[in-house]
């Protein structure tokens, strides 16, 4: 067993050499990578957000609101058809559970159900008595949700890109969640600000029959609603506006922050259709207020003094420079199809990340030195071989992580340190076994051989059980914990190679070279 065939020895050395080559980029400053060392692989280990600094955000798209909107529209469409057939009906409040309509005369129900059934494909009809409920079937539902999430992803990507950071990652998670990771972001509150808003902007005419306060007291005129003011600094708390959207934010093609009379404002430009519509509305409604509504709040409602024909305009309001910047950014990136909620946010400043890396590196090196010294004290020459294997193991962990582009996190560093302690375990098992075999009177070569052979199944069993724990951790864990599981799992696998094959090669070479007559272990 101690005898190595040439190709086997070469294979072990080849793996070690590859390890060194692929781990090497991690020891170079990142700036020099692209230029000087083109003969080396260019991949360094991916540092997690907790080490490089940055923000992680888990968002949930409010899919119920998408459904609610769609069912509302569906109910409207059905009611239009019902009206054409002179079927009297009453709408019910829009919910995410289906488009619901109450038919007023029992005789009409049969016919109304037929109309509702064929109103839109991929729907199912239910409801009892006078009530009609139309819901999307599984296929349509799935498509609806998927489209909403895809749109949200796109909008989120555009917004995050506006921040100008490098390599942001935006991914869907589960049915209706989005994970955003932005490395190297100094101010996470800005990310929060731009992701937490739907940014649905519409223009409505302000109702000129009543004020909001009168309407509250005497009842709303038909086709109007009351919306709060985004900023109460101008003394107006609520506006009474027409429900009808005169121009929608979907028609915006550009928006920039700028200044007007020394105050920050946001300029915008419509596409051709929007511009024409805007010109038309402003021509016909001179003197009325035009409310600019963003996410259900009125930003401002300037009076229309003259027709605005070029399709350009500005939004005034109580903005700070930052707010004007953010608003124009949001308008450029477009509105989300549905509101999003921030479920989880974790941000680490660059200073802390750097400190963590340094502390982790120091602790890892110190732990390594302890273990190396202790192995030499305990096993002499064999300890040195185990130490060489240990260093090789660390190099292999770095190499595998670089190649797989696995993410190193703070708990991941702990995983590596733990691997240092555990990697020598295989060697301890083997060496202790060799000691025993020697005590039992075996010859040197025989004892070494038996040591490796009998320790083998133990090493496998012991490592596989730890590997199981690591894999479960990986499949359940989030960010940092996943990083721990990855380094632990990689460390276990590489340690089996280095502790078994590499040490055996080293010991075999020594035995062959110096033909020892005494085994000090």
């Amino acid at each position, binding site marked *: 067993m101690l005898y190595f065939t040439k190709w086997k020895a070469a294979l072990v050395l080849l793996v070690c050499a590859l390890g060194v080559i692929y781990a090497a980029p991690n020891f170079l400053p990142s700036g020099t990578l692209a230029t000087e060392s083109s003969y080396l692989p260019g991949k360094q280990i991916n540092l997690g957000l907790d080490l490089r600094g940055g923000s992680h955000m888990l968002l*949930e798209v409010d899919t119920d609101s998408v459904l609610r909107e769609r069912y509302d529209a569906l109910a409207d469409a059905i009611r239009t058809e019902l009206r054409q057939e002179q079927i009297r009906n009453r709408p019910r409040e829009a919910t995410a559970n289906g488009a619901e309509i109450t038919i007023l005369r029992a005789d009409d129900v049969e016919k109304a159900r037929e109309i509702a059934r064929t109103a839109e494909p991929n729907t199912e009809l239910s409801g009892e008595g006078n009530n009609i409920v139309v819901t999307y079937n599984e296929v349509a539902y799935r498509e609806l949700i998927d489209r909403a999430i895809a749109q949200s992803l796109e909008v989120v990507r555009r917004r995050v890109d506006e921040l100008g950071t490098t390599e942001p990652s935006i991914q869907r998670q589960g049915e209706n969640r989005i994970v955003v990771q932005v490395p190297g972001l100094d101010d996470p509150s800005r990310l929060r600000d731009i992701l937490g808003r739907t940014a649905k902007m519409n223009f409505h005419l302000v109702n000129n029959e009543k004020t909001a306060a009168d309407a509250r007291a005497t009842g709303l005129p038909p086709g109007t609603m009351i919306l709060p003011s985004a900023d109460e600094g101008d003394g107006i708390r609520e506006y009474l506006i027409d429900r009808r959207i005169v121009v929608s934010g979907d028609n915006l093609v550009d928006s920039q922050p700028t200044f007007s009379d020394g105050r920050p404002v946001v300029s915008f430009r419509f596409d051709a259709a929007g511009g024409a519509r805007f010109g038309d509305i402003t021509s016909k409604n001179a003197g009325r207020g035009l409310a600019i509504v963003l996410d259900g709040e009125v930003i401002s409602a300037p009076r229309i003094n003259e027709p605005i024909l070029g399709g350009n305009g500005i939004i005034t309001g109580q903005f700070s420079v930052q707010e004007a910047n953010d608003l124009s950014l949001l308008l450029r990136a477009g509105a989300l199809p549905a509101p999003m909620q*921030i479920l989880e946010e974790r941000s680490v400043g660059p200073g802390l990340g750097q400190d963590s890396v340094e502390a982790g590196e120091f602790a890892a090196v110190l732990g390594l030195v302890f273990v190396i010294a202790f192995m030499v004290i305990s096993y002499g020459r064999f300890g040195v071989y185990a130490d060489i294997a240990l260093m090789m193991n660390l190099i292999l962990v770095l190499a595998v992580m670089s190649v797989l582009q696995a993410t190193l996190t703070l708990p991941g560093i*702990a995983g590596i340190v733990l691997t240092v302690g555990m990697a020598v375990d295989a060697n301890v098992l083997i060496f202790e076994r060799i000691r025993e075999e020697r005590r039992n009177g075996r010859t040197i070569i025989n004892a070494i051989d038996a040591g490796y052979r009998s320790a083998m199944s133990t090493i496998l*069993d012991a490592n596989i059980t730890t590997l199981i*724990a690591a894999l479960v951790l990986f499949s359940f864990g989030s960010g940092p914990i996943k990083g721990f599981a990855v380094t632990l799992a990689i460390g276990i696998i590489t340690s089996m190679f280095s502790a078994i094959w590499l040490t055996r090669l080293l010991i075999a070479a020594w035995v062959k070279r110096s033909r020892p007559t005494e085994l000090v272990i």
Partner: protein
Amino acid sequence: MKPLHLIPDDVNIPFLKFRKIFYIASLLMVLASVGMFFTKGLNFGIDFRGGILVEIKTNGPADINALRDNLGSLGLGDVSIQEFGEPDDVLIQLQRQDGDEEAQMAALAAVTNALGDDVTIRRSELVGPKVGGELKEAGFYSVVISLFLIMVYIWVRFEWQFAVASVVALLHDVLITIGFFVITGVQFDLATLAAVLTVAGYSINDTVVVFDRIREYLRKFRKMEIPDLLDLSINSTLSRTTMTSFTTLLALIALFVFGGEAIRGFTMALIFGIVIGTYSSICVASPLLIVLRLKRKIPEAEEGQEAGA
């Protein structure tokens, strides 16, 4: 130079003789852990509870009292403020706010506003109630699933008594490690949960090494009484068990002392768990095999030979 032998070569400690003491000690520790878990409870971090955490660096040593007055006046419920490793490093934690995720966002914004520009925010974490609940559930399942998978593996590789004994030892370690968190009040978060699972992996590792030896000796020493055989197995592997635990502890202690405040709870859990895991593989798992009536399984072929003889 003669290499150091931590454990003398001719060690022969009659572990099995003391097994009643070990059983009682272990039972007491487990009961205490479970009892405290249900009465005092774990000090869950925001990962599981939901809430807000902000780590700040102040200019010069932090005035904890001023910070407490400042943030306490915001009306955001319990605010915990503590020094975090360095005098100018402060960890602020807020309990989960009533209401949904929006309420958490608003609270975080209120805190960062109140802190002003004098301090540097090194880290901020916000976990909404939804995610907190999910993480707790996922964490629970991950412990159960890994225990189950490990048991299945041991069952495939050994006889059933070994599988049961190793999982009992494993549960013992996990429960006592959790008890350690209850007693010390060290915060229990995602990272410490990972530590508990690692302890499980490590402890089983230790146990398997001893069990492997028992299985080997069962074949080798056919006449030996089972208790003697168990003692012999434990003693033969004792040197390895202590060596490995010792090297792992060396590395972990370096991490505990120098690895920074952020992973201190995590390494503390690992250190404690490894000590407990080593104890349980020597003093709990192997003696349990007697309770479970481990017998020699004589391979059929040899049985046939004996019958023929």
